[in-house]
């Protein structure tokens, strides 16, 4: 695994008068879980699309190690984007290298508790299950950076908590660099090694905070809440971003 440097000098949409992103620098350490927190519409999805290579209309550079290449990406989109005419397993298999042994997918399905549903079509799955399939697909390609764009939005609280725990479990078994977009501070604290707060129009880094809570304590809601209170008290500048 290699570190990744992202530098976006300017990103302006053709129809917009003002730039969406100006002089944004992100440095991702290998196997680090980073949460990007910012108000909706601040350009977080634009940033992820640039990193994913879906949007090439920007000035800047992405460095993987020392090379100017596009990193290998796993992307969990806001909606799962599964092919409805392919089964759960086929959806995952299509994304991965054909030479990869099938046991890798078997193991991922098991961790995400989807072994029984692997031959079902996405229309027969609940939203929570579809999201889990999208997460498996992203891990299965063994990406250099895994992008997650509010993957738990519109899930009810218990389901969101369950998928979040499964995600953390999977990530601890197979550590990858994750860039996770959310506007839910509690969720961000529960997941991240480091929080990056972003402002809107143009998007800029407001502050970067390392989460000191140990991984074993992340399930403890009291610890999360107390850190959140402390964070809001010590960093008043982030209040307006939530």
């Amino acid at each position, binding site marked *: 695994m290699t570190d990744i440097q992202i530098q976006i000098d300017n990103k302006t949409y053709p129809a917009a008068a003002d730039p969406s992103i100006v002089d944004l620098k992100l440095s991702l350490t290998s196997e680090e879980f980073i949460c990007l927190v910012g108000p909706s519409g601040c350009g977080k999805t634009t940033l992820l699309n640039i990193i994913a290579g879906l949007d090439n209309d920007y000035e800047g550079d992405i460095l993987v190690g020392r090379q100017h290449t596009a990193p290998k*990406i796993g992307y969990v989109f806001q909606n799962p984007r599964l092919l409805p*005419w*392919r089964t759960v397993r086929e959806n995952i298999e299509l994304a991965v290298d054909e030479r990869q042994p099938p046991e890798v997918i078997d193991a991922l399905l098991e961790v995400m508790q989807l072994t029984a549903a692997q031959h079902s079509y*996405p*229309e027969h799955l609940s939203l929570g299950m579809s999201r889990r399939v999208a997460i498996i697909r992203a891990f299965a390609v063994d990406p250099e950076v895994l992008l997650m764009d509010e993957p738990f939005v519109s899930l009810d609280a218990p389901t969101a908590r369950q998928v979040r725990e499964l995600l953390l479990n999977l990530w601890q078994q197979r550590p990858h660099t994750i860039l996770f977009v959310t506007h839910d501070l509690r969720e961000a604290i529960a997941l991240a090694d480091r929080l990056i707060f972003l402002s809107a129009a143009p998007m800029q880094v407001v502050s970067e905070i390392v989460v000191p809570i140990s991984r074993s304590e992340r399930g403890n809601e009291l610890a999360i809440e107390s850190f959140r209170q402390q964070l809001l008290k010590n960093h008043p500048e982030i209040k307006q971003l939530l």
Partner: protein
Amino acid sequence: MISFKKCLPTLSLLAFLVIWQGLAVYLDSNTLPTPEAVAKVFWQACVSGQLPFHLGVTLLRLVISFAIAMLLGCAIGIVLGRNKKLDAFFDNWLVIFLNVPALVTIILCYVWFGLIESAAILAVVINKLPNVIVMIREGTRMLDQDLLDMARCYRFSKRKTLVHVIWPQLHPFVMGATRSGLALIWKIILVVELLGRSNGMGYQLHLFFQLFDVAGILAYTIAFVAVIQLIELLILKPLDKKALRWRK
């Protein structure tokens, strides 16, 4: 009640035959033979091998021209649907070809290339092609960009994207083009055969027309309708079922 409902299609067919028989007996004219007379002609034409031969010739022309029109039409339709500049350039051509009367294309093909088999096939293809292109182009324009982005992000090859992402989305449009295409090609092929071939259903119908043989015309029509029904039942319906098995 349920069994009565199930019998309705058969009953309606019987009613049709009864009305036909009644009218034929009432009119007592060569221009409207009874169902029985038509059945007899049908049977004789089958036994003599005349009907299977001409039907086979027409079917062969149908398969060849249909395959060419669908393959070319799908390829061009996808390209035009994905490329705005090419689409803007060829849009007028499409409108022109869509509106040239079938008869004009057929006559021109025969005049330019002679009364040969390839001219006949070409005339059918030219008539059907714009239709397929337009349908597939509309389908391609409606492709889900989210899924295409997903494919790009996961580095699907071009072939993988076409087979697993684009083609399943085009399926309803391809089936639409197939069904309307078969119906259109049937009709055009008969005219093509009537004007410039010495075999096939169109040629035979022309012959019956000159002989004023209505029973022959009706017997061949029945064979014709039966074949279309068989194609729908044995090929198109199973294809639909297989492609849409993922639906709830």
